[in-house]
């Protein structure tokens, strides 16, 4: 029983990361209607930048959050303002935009990933930071993983408050439900969509910083996290941000339990959940 609790806590620690990654993707799909296949590459950018900042410039990963977050936001914002906005204005309906934007993001994935290979090479990178351990209920956990969970929770809560309390947050929710009518109310839709895309990219970038604190990273890591993001987003309900948040923790716990029983089956379990979900409940936990 005690062992089981350890496994669940380990799952929560992993789940925080998944939740953060999936929330970003969910925001981009739920509001901007882009199923962003380049999402993993923003995680990779955050991770490798943090590695460089720490090993070359001796800047702490915790400070890297404050650097990589805004930079990936601006990057995402600009990508939406140029590429996706152009696709949106040339698409005659939402279905067409969803497919062209997904293909465009697929291309973007290769562009970013190959640029990263040029910049950082294919080597697997890692660094040691915050290696202390903390005891929770008798089991030992790395302090850096607790920091990761703390960040994921804080960003989740902050984002919830942002959406429910601020003017732009309310505009985002209105635009997610009915962009044309939000426009009639005076909301600059193109701006809101670009902000959402940027925020989603920033969540990926920050997640990348956190990933690099706990796991080895390299230029090819994006696809692995993209897969997790897609599974969690479908699990939580396509486009549902709270669903992604809960789904992230759920998948983390499931992953942790499966890897405790048989480590080799973790990824298999993820895909099995994904397939079963699509067959049994394609709208996910909180989808409409």
């Amino acid at each position: 029983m005690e062992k089981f609790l350890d496994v669940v806590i380990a799952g929560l620690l992993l789940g925080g990361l998944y939740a953060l990654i999936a929330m970003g993707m969910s925001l981009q799909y739920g509001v901007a209607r882009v199923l962003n296949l380049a999402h993993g590459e923003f995680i990779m950018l955050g991770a490798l930048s943090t590695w460089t900042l720490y090993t070359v410039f001796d800047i702490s990963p915790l400070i890297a959050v404050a650097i990589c977050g805004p930079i990936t936001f601006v990057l995402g914002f600009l990508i939406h303002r140029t590429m996706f906005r152009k696709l949106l204005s040339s698409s005659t309906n939402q279905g067409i935009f969803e497919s062209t934007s997904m293909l465009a993001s697929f291309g973007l994935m290769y562009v970013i990933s190959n640029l990263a290979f040029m910049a950082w090479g294919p080597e697997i990178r890692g660094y040691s930071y915050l290696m202390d351990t903390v005891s929770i209920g008798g089991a030992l956990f790395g302090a850096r993983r607790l920091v990761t969970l703390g960040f994921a929770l804080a960003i989740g809560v902050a984002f919830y408050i942002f959406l429910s309390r601020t003017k732009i947050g309310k505009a985002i929710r209105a635009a997610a439900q009915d962009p044309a009518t939000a426009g009639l109310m005076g909301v600059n839709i193109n701006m809101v969509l670009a902000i959402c895309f940027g925020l989603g990219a920033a969540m990926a970038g920050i997640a990348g910083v956190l990933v690099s604190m706990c796991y080895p990273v390299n230029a090819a890591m994006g696809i692995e996290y993209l897969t997790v993001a897609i599974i969690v987003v479908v699990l939580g309900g396509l486009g549902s941000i709270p669903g992604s948040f809960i789904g992230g923790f759920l998948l983390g716990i499931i992953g942790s339990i499966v890897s405790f029983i048989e480590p080799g089956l973790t990824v298999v379990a993820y895909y099995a959940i994904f397939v079963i979900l699509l067959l049994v409940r394609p709208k996910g936990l909180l989808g409409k």
Partner: protein
Amino acid sequence: MLEINNLNAFYGSIQVLWDVSLKVNKGEIVALIGSNGAGKSTLVRTVTGLLRATSGSIKFLDHPIENLPSHVISEMGISHIPEGRRLFTDMNVLENLEIGAYPRNAWKNKGKTLEHVFQIFPRLKERGHQLARTLSGGEQQMLAMGRGLMSEPKLCIIDEPSNGLAPMVVLEVFDIIKSLRDQGITILLIEQNVRHTLEISDRAYVLENGRVVMEGDCATCLASEHIKKAYLGL
């Protein structure tokens, strides 16, 4: 205030508006009537930037607006209360009203405007924290109109407000529209409920198959044989 000249618009390859011209003067209620599919909604959608006209001009307070995006047109003072209400159903009543005050100047005054809207629609105040989707049809229409007033518009375009409402509520809605005009808001009213509409309006345009087939003051329209036969069932 609003001046539309020789407007043509298409949905795909089908032409829906043919050389439509229409004018709304300050302080008027202008009715735009016609049957289903006549192009009424298409016309107002081109005014507020939801659809682009292929030719023709639209001027609001002497500024051309035919190429402006919806949010800029809203900031200029046109409020479009769309057909089918189009509320943000997953948001509560207060949040819907707040979004209505999104343009910068309206946002500054939103506390005061909200009080005013609650005076016109007291029921919205009681329902403040309820999700919009849980309101009755009549309340939803009130909320759509309240939301449209939150931007402190100069011109209100109200598209089919009586649609799907009980007769008693319809009368209430028309009374409120009349009172809005008395408060100095100019109104373009799109309706299929021809009799009530003509009774509260100053002038009317009749749209058939995308063309204006009749225009004039409401008394003339009510007396017209064509209107009597086609729209009033007399």
